[in-house]
């Protein structure tokens, strides 16, 4: 195993992670909900008076984040390693899988682990190992 020292950024990772944890904490302590992005997005539709508003507001807050961050320092734009067909396929799998499994990296990975949910531990270990295996196949077997 070789560490990528040029890109390794533990300080920024810890601070950014703490902000994600703070958001998840405020979500449960104020709105009484789990900050799982896939679940929140999926619940925007169909329109329901009590549900659609706060879910849409959360999503808009996410989209506004890079704009807000750029007031202080221009954030690095995302570089997509995959081409369009692969991204479309991956998007389908991410959306489908997150709903079938009842959560994604935020709902299971952050909130679920923080509340010691067995289902979330199993889901997180599963998607982490499968994602690591997928990258291994793409980069070191096929690539």
């Amino acid at each position, binding site marked *: 195993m070789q560490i990528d020292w040029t890109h390794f950024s*533990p300080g920024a990772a810890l601070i950014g992670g703490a902000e994600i944890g703070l958001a998840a904490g405020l979500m449960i302590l104020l709105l009484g909900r789990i900050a799982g992005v896939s679940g929140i997005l999926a619940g925007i539709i169909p329109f329901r008076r009590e549900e659609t508003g706060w879910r849409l507001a959360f999503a808009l807050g996410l*989209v506004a984040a890079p704009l807000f961050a750029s007031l202080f320092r221009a954030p690095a734009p995302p570089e*997509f390693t995959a081409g369009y067909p692969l991204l479309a396929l*991956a*998007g*389908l799998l991410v959306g489908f899988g997150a709903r079938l499994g009842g959560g*994604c990296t935020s709902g299971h990975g952050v909130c679920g682990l923080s509340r010691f949910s067995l289902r979330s531990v199993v889901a997180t270990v*599963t998607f982490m190992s499968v994602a690591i295996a*997928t990258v291994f196949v793409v980069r070191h077997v096929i690539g």
Partner: protein
Amino acid sequence: MKTRIPLSFLIGLIFGVGLVVSGMNLPSKVQGFLDIAGLWDPSLAFVMIGAIGVATLAFRLAAGRRISFIGEPIQQPAAGRVDARLVVGAAIFGVGWGLSGVCPGPATVNLAFLDPKAVVFFVAMVLGMAIERMGPLLKRASAPAAVEQDS
């Protein structure tokens, strides 16, 4: 309660800034973390440590409460069973996450960069969610619908 909507926007903003600051929104960085056999970037383990460290305290504070600090009911998922649906769903999610380096939070945050690739991923992801929702409807004629479980 009307205060929910501005609060939720603010929470989304904090969440998104956390993703941007940590670099979790960058597909190349996420894949650098997942590529343990290549040049490995362990940063995202530190994102999880930071996030879980803070969130654990909040969930401990929420544990005994039924009503939130602004008077909303606290809705935590009941401890459910580990079933095939959970494992298969997480595995499918893992394939997509590995292929792209993008999960739902970053997919939403990255819309702000107006990169057509970010838009394609987001639209495909929403379509994937819609297909998952249609599944039980299509099967309902022959079998009882699966019980919905949310994390």
